[in-house]
């Protein structure tokens, strides 16, 4: 599976980056490709390209504040969750997505 996503937390200092890493690790461990764009205090990092998005099977948006650029994902299966869900259960998140997409 090709996974792309965005993380954005309230302060934009810590959770955004920690959760991006957790999703990345959980996705790769389960045999997926994954790229997560962070939208934090320093702006957008690891930005998703049009090609990243075109190749993606699913989009994960983990956020506590409004994120920018959601229109890029039009027509893609998208999971919209609070940061805390991905913080607590990154592996379950990936496993649940895999199960749902397989149906």
């Amino acid at each position, binding site marked *: 599976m090709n996974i792309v996503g965005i993380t954005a937390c309230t302060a934009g*200092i810590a959770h955004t980056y920690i959760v991006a890493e957790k999703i990345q*690790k959980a996705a790769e461990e389960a045999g997926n490709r994954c790229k997560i764009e962070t939208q934090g*205090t*320093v702006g957008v990092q690891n930005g998703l390209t049009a090609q990243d998005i075109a190749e993606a099977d699913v989009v994960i948006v983990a956020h506590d504040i409004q994120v920018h650029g959601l229109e890029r994902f039009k027509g893609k299966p998208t999971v919209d969750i609070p940061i805390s869900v991905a913080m607590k*259960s990154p592996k379950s998140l990936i496993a649940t997505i895999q199960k749902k997409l397989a149906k």
Partner: protein
Amino acid sequence: MDLREILNPEIIDLRVKGNTKREVLENLSIHLLEQGYIEDVKQFVDDIFLREAEGPTGMGEGLSIPHGKSETVKKIGIAIGRTLNPIAWESDISDSGWQETNLIFLFCVSVDNSYAENHLLLLSELAGKLGNYGRVQSLLSAETADEIIEGLVSDKDEYECDRTSEEEIVELDIAL
């Protein structure tokens, strides 16, 4: 850029005293004051608590990452402390909403960051590293400030996928 630019052994304390969140944050902040990162301990800790009120900063595995922006911050940095006693800390990770914290990464961020973009980038890189279970485990057992710093700057593969968390995999109630 090098993470060592924001890692300073003088603001790493592996024997932080205190029994409450406020006590350990104050004791860690005294190092920030002494090293010229902040000008006022009480104001800084009060600003940290403002951020704490918005949502938990307990990350599980005994790790907490309190952070916030404060007018009293003169220099961006990160104070790292291991507590002598486990500290009750709000957390999204546990079902109770609380965890026991032993390791604290206290992010010290100024309000006007326009001049410090470089250090903010380093801080975000550091935060990402704390999302790695294997790395956090190694930091929890570090015995010196230098071991903490080496554990953070290292890009060794041993910290990568082979040591991920022991999270029990369940099906989540999410819409797709």
